């Protein structure tokens, strides 16, 4: 009796472990999307006084929720540190990870994860105190560097200093906030992170003008949303939600003109917005999946300017993150 119940319990544990396929059904049944974001990074995922999340990474969560559930607000945000993020996704605690995560070979091939696109092309840089008078990263021999633990930044830093025959002391912290505190208290001379984060962290300093970002960019950091491997239907949904944001901007569809375009736009615009073709159906979603995204979240350009661009305190230029025909490298596959 006892034994059989133990075996039954063992089987139950074993079975529950394998019941993970069908993320789309899970999300629909739950009625909310569980999305992993950062613990707080200005412009990418931040929480206001009322507890509402906003940011470029948050907008990806919102876009997926809009596409799947028809409501961009039906997202449950799970703030994760860099160290926790992959385990949270692997274990099924979250459905999508949208947390300024760099797409690397190791992560894509050995962690059981798939990268569903790129929502920000970044590169690692350095921020130093103005008082040091340092003009280039090559003058940093012997410096102490504040780094966030468990990131590609840690590895790039080691590579860069080794390649240039320089020494440094790595002071690693768990959260972006702690690295800022470390930098401010003088625990380290230089704070290294992705450039976008440097601007965000710099704004959080007591005196932002006391720090400068050095010109060197020492790595490629394509940041994007991540899903579990092995659920291709879900992978497609996240990939195309991401692509729809970019495609909408390319086609000139905005949250303001979405209704008009849906009714009387060009064929490409109509196909995206679901008044022509069956793009939504092929994804297992409703016909107005992309319309919901654009209407509720905006296109990529709107999201960019609102969160990190000219309408935000960060004032980051589009740079690499402009459309391919505007001097950037954003290029969405066509929706047809």
């Amino acid at each position, binding site marked *: 009796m006892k034994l059989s119940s133990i075996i039954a319990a063992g089987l139950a*544990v074993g079975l529950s472990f394998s019941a993970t396929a069908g993320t789309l059904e899970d999300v629909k049944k739950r009625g909310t999307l569980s999305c992993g974001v950062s613990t707080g990074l200005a412009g990418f995922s931040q929480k206001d006084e009322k507890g509402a999340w906003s940011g470029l990474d948050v907008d990806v969560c919102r876009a997926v929720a809009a596409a799947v559930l028809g409501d961009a607000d039906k997202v449950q945000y799970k703030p994760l540190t860099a*160290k926790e993020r992959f385990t949270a996704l692997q274990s099924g605690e979250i459905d999508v990870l949208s947390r300024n995560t760099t797409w690397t070979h190791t992560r894509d091939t050995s962690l059981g994860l798939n990268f569903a696109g790129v929502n920000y092309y970044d590169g690692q840089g350095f921020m130093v105190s103005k008082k040091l008078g340092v003009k280039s990263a090559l003058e940093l021999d012997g410096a*102490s560097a504040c780094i966030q633990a468990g990131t590609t930044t840690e590895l790039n830093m080691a590579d860069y200093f080794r390649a240039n025959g320089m020494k440094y002391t790595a002071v690693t912290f768990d959260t972006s906030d702690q690295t800022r505190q470390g930098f401010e208290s003088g625990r380290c001379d230089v704070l290294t992170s992705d450039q976008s984060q440097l601007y965000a962290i710099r704004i959080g300093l007591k005196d932002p003008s006391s720090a400068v970002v050095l010109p060197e960019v020492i790595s490629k950091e394509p940041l994007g949303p991540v899903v579990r491997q092995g659920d291709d239907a879900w992978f497609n949904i996240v990939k195309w939600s991401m692509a729809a944001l970019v495609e909408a901007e390319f086609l000139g569809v905005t949250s303001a003109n979405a209704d008009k375009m849906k009714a009387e736009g060009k064929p490409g615009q109509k196909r995206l917005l679901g008044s022509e073709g069956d793009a939504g159906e092929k994804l297992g979603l409703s016909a107005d999946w992309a319309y919901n995204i654009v209407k509720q979240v905006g296109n990529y350009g709107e999201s960019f300017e609102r969160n990190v661009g000219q309408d935000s305190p960060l004032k980051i230029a589009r740079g690499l993150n402009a459309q391919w025909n505007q001097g950037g490298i954003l290029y969405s596959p066509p929706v047809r």
Partner: protein
Amino acid sequence: MSNEPMPELQPVKSGSFFNNPRNRAAIYQILLLLGLMFFFYTIVSNALANMEARGIKSGFGFLTTTAGFDILMSLVEYDATHTYAKTFLVGLLNTILVSFVGIILATIVGFIVGVSYFSQNWLLKRISIVYVETFRNIPLLLQVFFWYFAVLSALPIVRDSINFGDAVFLNVRGLYYPEVVDEPGSAVVYGSLFLAFVAIFFLRRWAHKRQDETGEQFPVFLTSLGILIGLPLVTLLIMGNPFHLDYPEKGGFNISGGTNVIPELMALALALTVYTGAFIAEAVRAGIQAVPHGQTEAARSIGLREKRIMQLIIVPQAMRVIVPLLNSEYQSLVKNSTLATAIGYPDLFTVFVGTSLNQTGQAIEIVFMTMAVYFAINMMISFCMNRFNESVALVERK
């Protein structure tokens, strides 16, 4: 009826094997064991199968690949070109270091505060009470933050370092002090230091025996101190001081040369010491209170001085209560040292479960290895403390 002979009482033989309660018990044990083994086998094989199905790598092969990241502090040689196995070692040694320092300091603080509770001095007694009640009741994580972000972060930046005679510097990056560098002949001095310890050991034995036999006391403490300082000092002079000091100097960014204690280590060790010290103080107080007052009165009646009463009568008996409590405090301290991750002290948890896990994604293997290490460390502490406990336990007639 009454004439019939009583049936003889005999052990039941029917079927025999399964009716024997001992055999039955053994069978149940074996079945339970098999069931448990099957249970864990199912979990492990299921996890492995699922990980493989989802394309997650498993196994310990990652240990031999290059780590590629640097670590703030290491007791052995380490840089980014070393392997993940080495990061494990670096983290392990850092954990042992902070635990060791914490245990020693917490024990000293705990005994002083615990004994102070019984002081005739009003102020000392109050301080002891306030200390225990304050630090025992504040969460350790808060205390770690307090020491790191409130106290040590408030130290001056490098160029304004607090300077002690151009040899010792204190700033927000830690405490810098001269490093003692060995020169040829230094081994002789270390040897003499070892010799001094051996000599003290035998001196104590001799003095003890002499007191037993003749009742005469010998100034053991002062003589020991003399040997401990004198012998190495004499060899130091004979060998012509085979050491030199490497002084820290202010460099471009940091202070170079010398050696230093990083603020993360200071903050963590301080927090662990202060927190665990409060608990040990309570253990000491409990131990001393457990010794009946009659013992003190008896000691006074034979004319022992107050200090000697504490030393010879009270503390040895109190140890019986204190030592088992100390054991669990030490184990808690080791486990609490994982709070290092909150301030970035590179202990095993921060380096291995933090960075290494994140860079490799080998969660199960790494978490398992780390759990095994903390288990092993605490078992060792338990073993040592149990041996120590036996030595202070009441010796009963055999």
